[in-house]
């Protein structure tokens, strides 16, 4: 990020792909992400979404925050930071992790790339420079924000591997989920990880900003036969809900940003208890997390399978099929009609008495209909958040 040349006329930065994204963005509909301008919708959210489920979609994810952790204590630092134990992590492996504050409240989640024992890279949605720097105190480990020096694309969809294969990216089909390596795409040096936000087969491609346009163009090279679309944030939001991935400051307030203390959430409330290893040595939040686990969550983020076809956006959840006897027991944080599942799905918080899988709760849906609202009292079944789970996601070798 060139901060020395800021101008009030251009409050937002452009990513290294801007030349191409602006070309594709017929809708001229932009979204602010970490100070960057990224497309919300290129031309049709529905088709952009479909590309990620049918062929492959390309998403500019350059605004992701990227931090390099280097030094002989790099691994120890990560182990103090996150709730998972990474003692046995191998080079070229990626782990998904969360980090909490001292009270065991979740600050953010992210993917952690292990280059070697002394070099890790963390990718995350929120800015964490101060938190990481404070956590690094006492370790022989440096924290550097390298966000502006890496351009990034998500390349997600069932044909993603096939297209990379057509581009002669050697051995890409054997890259296992949650692993990464260095590759070459038509003479552009890139790092590719088999990760992503779509819950489908897909990759994330990292390169120097100077290579950005070349890499972008390569991904669209076989467009005549295999329709690849640039996909915007709206489409990304759809696939991530189907995949059951949660977002800080959308599904829960980051503990670093919540103004009201009771809006902070612990991992058990987010359904992320599986990421917490209480057997490992001291890490930030451990003592509090032991207490949180013992006590059990008062409410939990769950998946909801909702009757009908009207998305329960912003709905309040209740405990009774009869509206006049119902008590509030939760809230929907994200909701959509899922085209791939042909289901009305949502993610939401549900209180203790009702968060068991299979429980029934009720959503009051305000559905706008020609300048009026239809109020729908819809039955919801508590289900796993991971709604979409196609086996091709994890198959290795991947489909070519």
């Amino acid at each position, binding site marked *: *990020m060139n*901060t*020395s040349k*800021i101008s*009030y006329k251009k*409050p*937002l*930065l452009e990513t290294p792909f801007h030349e191409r994204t602006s070309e594709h963005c017929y809708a001229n509909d932009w979204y*602010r992400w970490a*100070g960057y301008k990224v497309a919300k919708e290129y031309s049709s959210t529905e088709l952009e979404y479909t590309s990620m489920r049918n062929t492959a979609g390309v998403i500019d994810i350059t605004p992701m925050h990227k931090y390099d952790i280097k030094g002989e204590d790099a691994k120890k630092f990560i182990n103090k930071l996150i709730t998972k134990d990474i003692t046995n992590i191998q080079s070229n492996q990626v782990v998904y992790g969360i980090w909490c504050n001292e*009270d065991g409240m979740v600050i953010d989640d992210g993917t952690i790339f292990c280059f070697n024992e002394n070099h890790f890279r963390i990718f995350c949605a929120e*800015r964490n*420079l*101060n938190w990481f*720097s404070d956590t690094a105190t006492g370790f022989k480990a440096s924290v550097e*924000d390298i966000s502006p020096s890496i351009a990034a694309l998500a390349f997600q969809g069932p044909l993603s591997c096939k297209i990379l294969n057509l581009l002669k990216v050697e051995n890409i089909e054997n890259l296992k989920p949650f692993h990464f390596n260095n590759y070459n795409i038509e003479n552009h040096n890139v790092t590719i990880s088999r990760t992503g936000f779509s819950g489908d087969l897909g990759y994330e491609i990292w390169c120097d900003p100077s290579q950005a346009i070349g890499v972008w163009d390569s991904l669209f090279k076989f467009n005549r036969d295999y329709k690849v679309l640039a996909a915007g944030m709206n489409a990304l939001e759809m696939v991530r809900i189907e995949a059951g991935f949660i977002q800080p400051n959308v599904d829960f307030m980051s503990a*670093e*940003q*919540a*103004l*009201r*203390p*009771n*809006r902070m959430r612990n991992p058990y409330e987010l359904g992320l208890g599986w990421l917490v290893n209480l057997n490992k040595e001291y890490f930030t939040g451990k003592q509090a997390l032991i207490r949180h686990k013992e006590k059990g969550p008062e409410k939990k983020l769950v998946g909801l399978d909702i009757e009908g076809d009207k998305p329960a956006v912003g709905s309040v959840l209740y405990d009774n099929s009869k509206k006049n006897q119902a008590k509030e027991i939760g809230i929907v944080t994200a909701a959509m009609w899922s085209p791939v599942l042909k289901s009305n799905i949502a993610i939401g918080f549900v209180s203790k008495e009702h968060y068991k899988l299979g429980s029934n709760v009720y959503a009051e849906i305000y559905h706008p209909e020609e300048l009026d609202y239809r109020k729908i009292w819809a039955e919801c079944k508590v289900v796993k958040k991971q709604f979409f789970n196609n086996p091709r996601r994890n198959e290795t070798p991947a489909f070519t």
Partner: protein
Amino acid sequence: MNKTKYDVAIIGGGHNGLTTACYLAKAGLKVIVVERHEYVGGAAVSRELHPGWTYSNCSYVCSLLRPEIFRDLELSNHGLQIIPYEGSASMLNDGRFYAHYQDHDLTYRSIAQFSKKDAEAYDRFGKDVMRQCKIIKPLLKMTPPDPTSFKPKDIMGLFEFAKYFAAKDELGGLGEKEIYDTIRFWTMSVRDYLEEYFESDIVKVHLAGSAIIGTALGPYSPGSAYVLLHHYMGEVDGTVGAWGYSRGGMGSITKAMASSLKSNNGEIKAGSPVSQILIKNNKSYGLVLENGDEIYADKIVSNLDVKRTFLKVVEEKELPSDFYKAVKNFKIRGSSGKLNIALDDLPIWKSIPVGDPAGTGDLHITQNIEEMEGAYDDWKDGKWSQFPYVDMCIPSINDPTMAPQGKHYMSVFIQYVPYNLANGGWTEEKRLEFGKHVMNRIGNYSTNFNDIINHAEIRTPKEIEAEVGLTEGNIFQGELTMDQLMFNRPVPGYAQYKTPIKNLYMCGSSTHPGGGVMGAPGANAAREILKDLKMKISTHYI
């Protein structure tokens, strides 16, 4: 001689006096405001001191005025408009500038030029300050309970306080940590507070400005962090911490209040300095004006600061000696100066490009906290600061009514300027020298400033006191330190707008919650008076 008897007579037509008057008149009482000057407003005035230019010659920006008061008094229908403005900036000696903009991402990048960590920390700072603002906001409207009293209403009041802090919903469940933070915030120095968040000098000093404006504290003085909070707890249309201009100058606020008062049949007697409050058997019953006229009223309310009220217009013999002593010891030290400058053109800054919105908000030139503390040291020595902190703004950029077309009005608030100047005190020459000193200093950051000055009004604490009547020219009617806040403001035992004299009340900024053009003391006082009269009024505030 005026023989009419009033229900309530209010001494002083400042924004608080007028607020009290408006609510009481709204309740149907016969109210008169007695004002020394030919115009109302106190320290919220717009004055044409140079032909064609309107000066907000005391207070100059607006944020704290409680929106409920604005609404209750229908100030919009009486002509008041508050206009938000963009940004603020500090100009550096090396030719760069540091700015905050309305656009959050732009502000991030602006701060990141100096420190990436600070750019990120600014959000955490903002969140923590906002949380404290949320805590304090409802307290502004409360009459502070007396913690030593066993009266049901005080016990209930304390209970309300406690309940409020424990309230899960309103504040989102304050935990121990947040309560600790509150106590720390109310007692720390702003330097120590900012040190916990930021590393860059310019970031710290830019933010520290809010903590020293109007106060006789330095950035290293314990208690200064609260002053910062006091300047952040206002809002413009729900944007907490934002500041705006009152269209037509700060006098538009009090003009609208006066008009609102008249619409409820309240009276204003201008050009009538009060010389004494009439008291018999420990009960007040009227006022004597300097011309000898007397005005009678069941209740007397003083908008004057507590010192001026009890050391000037109430006779000492009428007061309990402890109370008298406490009033004498009330800290109300003059520390601020003000320049109002008529400009023939817009200043061109060496660092901020023409047209950059950073130049349209408040502007500063102090380089670091040490320089700011040095400015305070000079004040302690009885000198005006060699490198004063200035809070400059050019309202005419945003408000088309302040200056002739093509010309501009600049307001310069100066910290620190002593009330008592060492080496012989203030003289006319020294006043002019002080003004010149400040203008020269500003001139260093501009290519044309010195050439476009058409007229300048130079005010030391002496002038502010002489014109507005604020003791020592203290803009808050008394320091905003913990020992003088809440149930200690202005005097322990007398924080509920009442005085040792029956039927005599206080409504000025010397009372809770203190200074700033907020109106809360005035509205709170009105509520207490109505309670004593067993009257009820249904408004947004009361």
